Every structure is written in structure tokens, then in C-alpha cells.
């Protein structure tokens, strides 16, 4: 089912008082693909993310999520936790938001809250000690263990998340998001602060998530090596509007994109490119 859209953002606008952070933005993310949202600082990328994941209510426009079975959900109307729960959209944060006082394993268990709540009969059955809950809990621990193996943190499972190294925390946050078994995974600057080796490991992880699990990924990123290597499709923003989109190759050669990053205007960038190549 490749080539099908999982997320369509349609004329999204976000206003804060008098400031327009995002203006008339439209783009689509394809199923089982990695879509990157890039642009200079202040372009409005995190704002778009927050609109998609329900932390801001858009001032205008529509955001549609299409499930495997064809069901469409209007994200602009859902409250934040419902987006994660019903629309199966998971996210990570620019400043890592783990549960620092809980162990790595506990963090991954919290992610499976809704499944476990149902299995525990909304706590009551669990309180009595019904076997169905115990089985569900075992399964949840198995899933968590699986992910810990995948991100190479199995030996740190019982350590406090706050005690983990920065790179480990980033991977744990991704694993935690994946434990909600989402259809769309939104990552906000997952490579921030990672060195070259860690970035390469991250690229591998994201590609394996796409290839083996079939999860669609939308990511904001500044690290171009990661973006260029793993993205199937790139959307470029500047000052709240989309200025380019396409494959990594197309975007890399687009003078508009270069101009935006350099802070010059398009013609100058095109001229420099022509004279250089």
C-alpha cells in the first residue's frame, strides 16, 4: 500500500496573538515512509508538530490522518491525549521528556497504559488479581524488553531514566513512543546533541522502524546527514510557509532552500550555484 497518504496537512494556519507562526501550510506524509520537515530556526516546524500532535489548536486548516483500514480522523479537532490514543500518533520532544524518577522499563510500561488499563478492567479486576491482567502485564513487559534490546539498553532496564546518558535517553524516548504501537511516529529533533556515531545508530534505528514495523515517520531535524540519508520525502519551511518539497536530491539542489538557510535571496543563491557547478 505504498504511495498512499497517511497524514495530510491542508492549509494549516497558526496564529499567536498578532504573530502568524504558520501560514497556509499544506503537505502530505506517505504511509510507511520517512518524511522530514526542515527549515531554519524559527520557521515554525515545532509549531506544526504541536498542531499535528494536539498541543496547539490550529487557527485554521485541516489535518487528516488516514488509518490502514481507510478510516480518516480529523486531528485538528481532537484533544492531545486522544490523538495519541485514538489516532495512534506518537511523538518525542525537542527537550527530552522522559520520566526521570522511573526506570527505563517503567517508562516503557507507562507507554502501554491504555492496553493495560483495559486488561485490568479499569483497575478493579487488577486489584483483585485476575489472571487476564497478569498475562497482559507479562506481554507488556515482553514488548518493553524487546524494545530495550532493539535500542541496546537491556542492561540498563532497571536504572533510573534520569541517570542514563544523553544519547541513551534519546533512544529510550523513541522506544517509549513506539511502545504505544503508533501508526505515525513524530520525532522532534531526535538527533540533537548526538555525535556522529550516535547519529548513525539513530538513522539505523529509524530505518529499521520503517522497514520492519511499517510505521510512518515524520521528523523535524537539523542534522542534514541524518535527513538526507533516511528521508523519503522532505518538506522545507521558512518563516511559517512551505518553500520547497521533494526527494532529498531535489531539495538539496533547490536554490530557494539554500537561500533560506544562508539567509540570502533566491537569485543570489542560484547565481552562486551556477557559477560554482
Amino acid at each position, binding site marked *: 500500500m505504498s504511495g498512499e497518504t497517511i497524514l495530510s496537512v491542508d492549509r494549516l494556519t497558526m496564529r*499567536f496573538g498578532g504573530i502568524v507562526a504558520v501560514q497556509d501550510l499544506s503537505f502530505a506524509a506517505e504511509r510507511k515512509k520517512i518524511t522530514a520537515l526542515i527549515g531554519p530556526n524559527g520557521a515554525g516546524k*515545532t509549531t506544526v508538530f*504541536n498542531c499535528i500532535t494536539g*498541543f496547539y489548536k490550529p487557527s485554521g486548516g485541516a489535518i487528516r490522518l488516514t488509518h490502514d483500514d481507510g478510516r480518516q480522523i480529523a486531528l485538528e479537532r481532537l484533544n492531545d491525549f486522544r490523538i495519541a490514543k485514538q489516532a495512534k500518533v506518537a511523538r518525542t*520532544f525537542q527537550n527530552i521528556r522522559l520520566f526521570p524518577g522511573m526506570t527505563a522499563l517503567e517508562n516503557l510500561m507507562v507507554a502501554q497504559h491504555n492496553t493495560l488499563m483495559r486488561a485490568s478492567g479499569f483497575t478493579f479486576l487488577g486489584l483483585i488479581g485476575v489472571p487476564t491482567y497478569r498475562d497482559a502485564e507479562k506481554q507488556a513487559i515482553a514488548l518493553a524488553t524487546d524494545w530495550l534490546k532493539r535500542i541496546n539498553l537491556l542492561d540498563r532496564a532497571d536504572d533510573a531514566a534520569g541517570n542514563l546518558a544523553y544519547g541513551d535517553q534519546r533512544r529510550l524516548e523513541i522506544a517509549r513512543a513506539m511502545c504505544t504501537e503508533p501508526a505515525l511516529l513524530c520525532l522532534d529533533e531526535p538527533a540533537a546533541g548526538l555525535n556522529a556515531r550516535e547519529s548513525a545508530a539513530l538513522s539505523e534505528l529509524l530505518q529499521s522502524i520503517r522497514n520492519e514495523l511499517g510505521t510512518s515517520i515524520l521528523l523535524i531535524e537539523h542534522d542534514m546527514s541524518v535527513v538526507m540519508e533516511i528521508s523519503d520525502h522532505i518538506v522545507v519551511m521558512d518563516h511559517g510557509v512551505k518553500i520547497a518539497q521533494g526527494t532529498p536530491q531535489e531539495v538539496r539542489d533547490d536554490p530557494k532552500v539554500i537561500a533560506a538557510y544562508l539567509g540570502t535571496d533566491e537569485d543570489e543563491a542560484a547565481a552562486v550555484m551556477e557559477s560554482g557547478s
Partner: protein
Amino acid sequence: MDYFAQQLINGLVLGSIYGLIAIGYTMVYGIVGMINFAHGDIFMIGGFIALITFLILVSLGLTAIPVILLVVLLVSMAITALYGWTIERIAYRPLRHSFRLAPMLSAIGMSFVLTNYSQVAQGARVKPIPPFIPGGHTLHESPDGFVIQLSNIQIMVVLTTIVLLGIFTWLVSRTRLGRDMRACEQDQTMAALLGVDVDRTISMTFVIGAALAAVAGLMYLLYYGLVDFFMGFVAGIKAFTAAVLGGIGSLPGAMLGGLAIGLIETFWSAYFSVEYKDVAAFSILIVVLIFMPTGLLGRPEVEKV
């Protein structure tokens, strides 16, 4: 109609007193982000200091009322300011970088200390004083005999409040200290890096707040003719409600909120029931924080994710 007008006057006077206390809450919250639970009790201490100073001056034989008032005002402002300074040094400064709950619990503890301290030091009974500033003016006499009174005390309270507000606004907007305060409110670390003495600025905030609360205590003493060791608790919550209503962090808001609370409390007592007037005030706090958390003059905050 006349009854209404009288309640209006009474409400504004009560509101001025609440406003003076509210300024202390809003300043401290703006600069260190904590609710100073002990502030209401500072107001109470101010009232007590004023009372005792009065007694001493009168028994020393002074009779010139303006002189007495001036001395009492200065003495109670000075000593109460020292209380505010001391409390900040002992109970809040060591906890400035601790976790959120610590200064709050420390403040609650300090509040208990102050209440019990004055109860132990001066006894648990209410302390009355004879009316000090007698007389007033009849504004209007209605045909059915109801008289709208504006007493001299009421005039004094409002005038003092206006004067103090003026001095204070000048202080915040024109002086170096005011600038330092506003800088610390925005970004403490940056202010420190730019040479602002953050410790001293915060101390001065507490000192000024306490001084204003002392004035409120003196006004309360003159207006109601008594002080008791428990008056800080309820007045404190009402004044904090006023600060929130006006928009926490906003000084004109604190005064506006104070007047609003004073009016609401007075009208509620006059037209509905006296017993439940405190319930009305507390309910306003809840209602405001639910529907209008930034208050009337505050700035709306967008949650950063």
C-alpha cells in the same frame, strides 16, 4: 439607593486595605514565583506593632494626633519591613534553588510561627483601641432617614493608599531598584550576569511588600478598631484572591483586584448574608483561577511544549 452608595464607600475603603496587602503578594510572586503564605501574617504583625506603638505614645503623653499617626506609621513600616526581610533570609533564601514544594511549606510553617508568636506574645484575646480619628461628613440625607456617611478614617485610608501607590509606582518605574526588580522578574540569571544584585533586589521586594502590608495593618486597626492574632489568615487569602483577580504580577492589577474584592465582600454582606462572606471571597478565588487564571490585567501564557 443611599444604602447602595454607603456600601460602595465602605467597599472601596476595605478594598484599599486589601489592595495594599495584595501588592506584596503580587510582587513576590512576580519575582520569585512563590506565594508568600506568611504575607497575611505580616499584615497582622503590622497591625500589632501599630497598636503597641499607639499605646506607648499615648501613655507617654502625646496628644497631637497627626504626629502620633506619623510616628506610628513610620515605626510600624520600619519594624514590619524588618520582619519581612528576616523571614526571607531565614525561610526562603536557602530554598531558592530547592524544589517547588519546599519554599511553600516553609512559608506555611512561617505563617504558623507568626500567628502563634503573636498569640503567645500578646495573648489570645482581641485587642481593641478607642476610635482615634473621630468624625466624618454627612454626604447625603435621604427622606427616610438613611444617612450616607464618609468618615474621616475612610478618607484617610483612601488618601494614604493613593499616596503610597503613587510613591510605589514611581519607585518601580523610575528608580534603579524598580528596574532591577523588573529585570529579575523576567530573567534572574541574565540579570545577575548583567550586574544586578539579585539577592538584594529580592530582599527589597519582600521589604517593600511588608512595609505596605504594615500600612494596611495600621489602616485596619484604625478602621475596625481592633487586631487579633488570627486576622492574617483570612485577610491573606482574600488579598491573594485580589492579586490573582487583578492579574498576578501586575501592580495596578493588585490594587484593582483589591478594590473588587472589597466591594464584592461588602455588597455580599449587605445584601445576602454576613456569615457566608468569607465563603464568597474564597469562591471568587476558585472561579477566577478556573475561568480567568491570568486575571483582569495579566498576560495570557501559552504553554511551551
